[in-house]
């Protein structure tokens, strides 16, 4: 019996909601209970965006994640805002291209990955979110089932953009294979 509460946070336009939706679908297809809740203030490209995802063996109560087990921070304001909220023993993923400082907490696991630089080197500058996602799945042992990852990806990429399926799989592999 387990419940994992994820908080994705970054700039509007970084694909925060998209990667959250992908992870929720992955959970659904693994037979888990899931919820996905976006922040929906007057968001815009460049503003702050966040998204709560819960993946659980038991029915999801409140869909609001205020104490995340896993924080995916894609910019400095997000790390500043949510670092203290992460539960002790939780994990923080940091896009180290955009966040120059280190995590201050000493009671959490921290994974630094220069996702924005990796994305730009790969000529897919808009997919830093999915590079981090690949790393998250990798750390959680979820990348072992690559077919399952691809099946969940198919759910969030519309048929019209089928060409993006392989591109997303490839960048997730980049995240999966990245070693600090």
């Amino acid at each position: 019996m387990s419940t994992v509460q994820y908080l994705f946070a970054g700039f509007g336009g970084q694909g925060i909601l998209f990667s959250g939706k992908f992870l929720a679908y992955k959970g659904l297809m693994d037979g888990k209970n899931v919820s996905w809740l976006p922040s929906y203030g007057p968001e815009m490209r460049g503003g702050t965006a966040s998204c709560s995802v819960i993946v659980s063996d038991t029915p999801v109560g409140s869909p609001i994640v205020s104490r995340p087990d896993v924080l995916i921070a894609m910019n400095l304001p997000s790390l500043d805002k949510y670092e203290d909220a992460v539960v002790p023993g939780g994990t923080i993923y940091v896009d180290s291209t955009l966040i120059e400082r280190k995590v201050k907490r000493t009671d959490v696991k921290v994974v630094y990955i220069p996702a924005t630089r990796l994305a730009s080197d790969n000529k897919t500058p808009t997919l830093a979110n999915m590079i981090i996602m690949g790393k998250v799945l990798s750390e959680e042992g979820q990348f072992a089932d690559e077919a399952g990852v691809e099946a969940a990806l198919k759910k969030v990429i519309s048929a019209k953009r089928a060409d993006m399926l392989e591109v997303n799989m490839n960048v997730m592999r980049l995240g999966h294979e990245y070693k600090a």
Partner: protein
Amino acid sequence: MADKVLMKGNEAIAEAAILAGCRHYFGYPITPQTEIAAYMAKRMPKIGGTFLQAESEIAAINMVYGVSATGKRVMTSSSSPGISLKGEGISYLAGADLPALVVNVQRGGPGLGGIQPSQSDYFQATKGGAHGDFHMLVLAPASVQEMAELTVKGFDLADKYRMTAMILADGTMGQMMEPVSLDFAAGEPVEKPWAVTGTKMARPHNIVNSLFLKPEALEKTNFERFERYERIKETEVMYEEYMMEDAEICVVAFGIASRVSKNAINEARAQGIKVGLIRPITLWPFPEKAIAKAAEKCKKFISVELSMGQMIEDVRLAVNGKAPVTLCNRTGGMIPAPEQVLAAITDAAK
């Protein structure tokens, strides 16, 4: 699980309405319910239905009135300030005994307020919502699955009792995604011999009207309507009980507040506190008998709300002085954290 899809609550309402046979949607955009209109704009033209973005909320509700008079299933949706604008039309629907589905995905108020989730339209929804002697059936979903199921149920009840059914959701319910199965029975069609469909010179005219200048006639329509309400109170109440078997403290909460409360109740149970939840699914008719029954054994009641305390008045009426009823709330677009509800429960347990 394979047949489940992830959908936003707003989208689930829209798709369920189509499943229920609704082919006419009139609305005007407002956060946090705009996905309903967006979904209808995409889907309705493909299935021979009507999607119309009206020039205002008032225009939209009057288009609902017109279509309903012809016997077709019809809906509109909005959020708090927009619902206030629709009030006049909702009252006219009641006066003319016309069925309709109105969705309110609530945001903080009063006034233009904010755009974050709220439950502060409880009074407006359950006590009538506009001028005159009438009620709406008020359904309060607490999951995306219920957003879909109660939409279908709302159309069925609206037709059965010739009145407006309101889905009273909030911004969280509208915006969140959860797995949904849309594999459920669509609503049964109901005969509508009163509908304005053309007489073909074969029957007398049907008249749909909310103007009764003779007070004796108007009084009669109100008496008849309230007899119907009594039948609804006897037969259509819906609620969920959670861990109530041995509960000494009873939390009452609906919608998103009930989900936060469940987290807190699980935590309190782990600490050995005997606490349970009554979750009204119909807010009107209110599950007053279930709460009165709980008041025979529970020592304390806590009403958890995203408002300054509106449902608490109905909880107190049902408890009828047998136990104290306290409020645990946030308002203005804020949502109580499970820790706040837990603190209210541990306080009550002292």
